[in-house]
């Protein structure tokens, strides 16, 4: 459904510009949820903008449902639906008016537009708020309306691009949105969503591509990615500078002032025990430890510095 090869894009003056994409390749063969995971500035939004025909790549090519995003952009636009990072709804209009307007813009007549708006309001749990101005909506409601507005004219199942759909939402709204996205996929849609949350990719996606500095650095199911990168990090406070230096190469997180090192682990008691025994056989080097979930930073550090497969070799 989605196929991209060697996408590059730079912004700013030629020669002195910033290279945002540096050869991104993607292949989404079948329907389901696919996550593009990466930190701010990795190139997620640019990738989505190219795939959804809003920006042209400097080089490389991409096809959506067989149509080229540059040459056949008209055809592509009839297959896709985009929900960008900035809400694309009118604050002063009501939820209902927003959806009816979008429906009419896609070519539905008045009665059909009204019907489509009602359907979507029901499906996205916005019936009670339908006649209120969007400015009174919560962040979660706004996001759901935005998603509904993107869906209005698209034939389902189609291809959906969601750029950071849950950024800025509270945990409850995030869960509600996940539910909506899963439902889309259950109806046979192909969803490509960007996120900077590992947990979100893990919860939602069938496959994950990790984007860093304009390149795809890893790709696979959440499970395979997690087996390449430990899911947790054990922070060790060491008793001496010598111990710190000796162990520093195994760490993904360094804090020399406090003699603290962060080492990947899968979080199981067995691994934690084995890890401590391995690192500190004489039980003198480690003073304290704490365990927490790996952040995206840890994953990136692990993926880009090569300290992967941490749990495997202990």
């Amino acid at each position, binding site marked *: 459904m989605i196929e991209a090869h060697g996408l590059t894009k730079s912004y700013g003056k030629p020669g002195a510009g910033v290279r945002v994409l540096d050869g991104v390749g993607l292949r989404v063969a079948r329907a389901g949820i696919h996550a593009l995971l990466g930190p701010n500035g990795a190139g997620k939004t640019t990738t989505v903008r190219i795939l959804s*025909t809003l920006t042209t790549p400097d080089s490389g090519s991409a096809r959506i449902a067989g149509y080229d995003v540059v040459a056949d952009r008209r055809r592509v636009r009839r297959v896709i639906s985009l929900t960008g990072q900035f809400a694309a709804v009118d604050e002063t209009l009501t939820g209902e008016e927003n959806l009816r307007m979008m429906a009419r813009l896609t070519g539905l007549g008045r009665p059909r537009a009204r019907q489509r708006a009602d359907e979507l309001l029901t499906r996205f749990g916005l019936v009670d708020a339908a006649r209120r101005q969007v400015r009174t909506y919560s962040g979660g409601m706004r996001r759901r309306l935005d998603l509904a507005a993107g869906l209005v004219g698209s034939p389902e199942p189609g291809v959906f691009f969601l750029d950071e759909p849950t950024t800025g939402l509270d945990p409850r709204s995030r869960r509600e949105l996940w539910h909506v996205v899963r439902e889309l996929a259950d109806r046979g849609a192909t969803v490509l969503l960007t996120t900077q949350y590992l947990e979100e990719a893990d919860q939602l996606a069938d496959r994950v591509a990790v984007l860093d500095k304009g390149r795809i650095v890893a790709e696979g199911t959440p499970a395979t990615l997690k087996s390449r990168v430990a899911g947790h990090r054990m922070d060790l406070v060491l008793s001496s500078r010598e111990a710190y230096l000796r162990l520093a190469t195994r760490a993904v997180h360094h804090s020399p002032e406090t003699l603290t090192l962060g080492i990947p682990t899968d979080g199981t008691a067995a691994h934690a025990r084995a890890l401590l025994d391995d690192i500190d056989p004489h039980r003198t080097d480690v003073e304290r430890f704490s365990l927490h979930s790996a952040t995206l930073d840890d994953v990136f550090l692990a993926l880009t510095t090569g300290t992967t497969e941490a749990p495997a070799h202990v």
Partner: protein
Amino acid sequence: MSDAPGILTHATVLTGRSLLVSRRNVDAVITSMMLPVLLMLIFVYFFGGAIDTGGAHDSYVMYVVPGVLLLCAGFGSATTAVAVSEDMKGGIIDRFRSLDIDGTSILAGHVVASTVRNLVSTTLVFGVAVLIGFRPAATPAGWLAVAAVLLAYIVALSWLSAAIGLLARTPEAAGGFTFFMSFLPYPSSAFVPVDTMPGWLHGFAEHQPVTPAIESLRGLLLDQPVGDTPWLALTWAAGVLVVSVALSRVLFRTRTR
């Protein structure tokens, strides 16, 4: 899938959207409509007594109404810049583009809505003018020409304002830009005869785009000879419109690259 709707459908729906937004912000709309009326009252009652328009007019109100109508068109069109700029700031333009809606239809929606708002405020100015003693003597053909000139200026200024909205990086900046635009009627014969101004200003005041509009409106409304001023006015409006449409197409493309 429904048939791909054309530019006309898009522009019509988007005009409806802008008008709906105006109706929601009715206090702001009323404020922008009251301003020209207030200015007219100020000119007629505060300054009018001191201004000698050369004796050809019974009273200052007969002289000043065309200028106020143009001023009104300037104020009314200025809101378009802010509205376009607001659109560019949010994500709605991306959504529109992903629906294959052309930039020109998005702007056309704003411009048509602006024209409708302007027709309301122009009627208001006329109404108040008549209340305070304005007695037009235009022939039916003259009225038609008045309507054509006003409509042409409103559409041209609205589209210019839309282009300014694309040029400005923030809605606040857009508002500031158009503020200057609405000062254009002052250095013309709108409020005082040009020959009372300093000599170096005559050249500009007699040949700037607003002047033929004011001269022709004044002549037509009072049923006096107008010469070729209505045609000159329409040519200016057409020129501004063509440049604004072309400019906004280029700006839209660069802003949404």
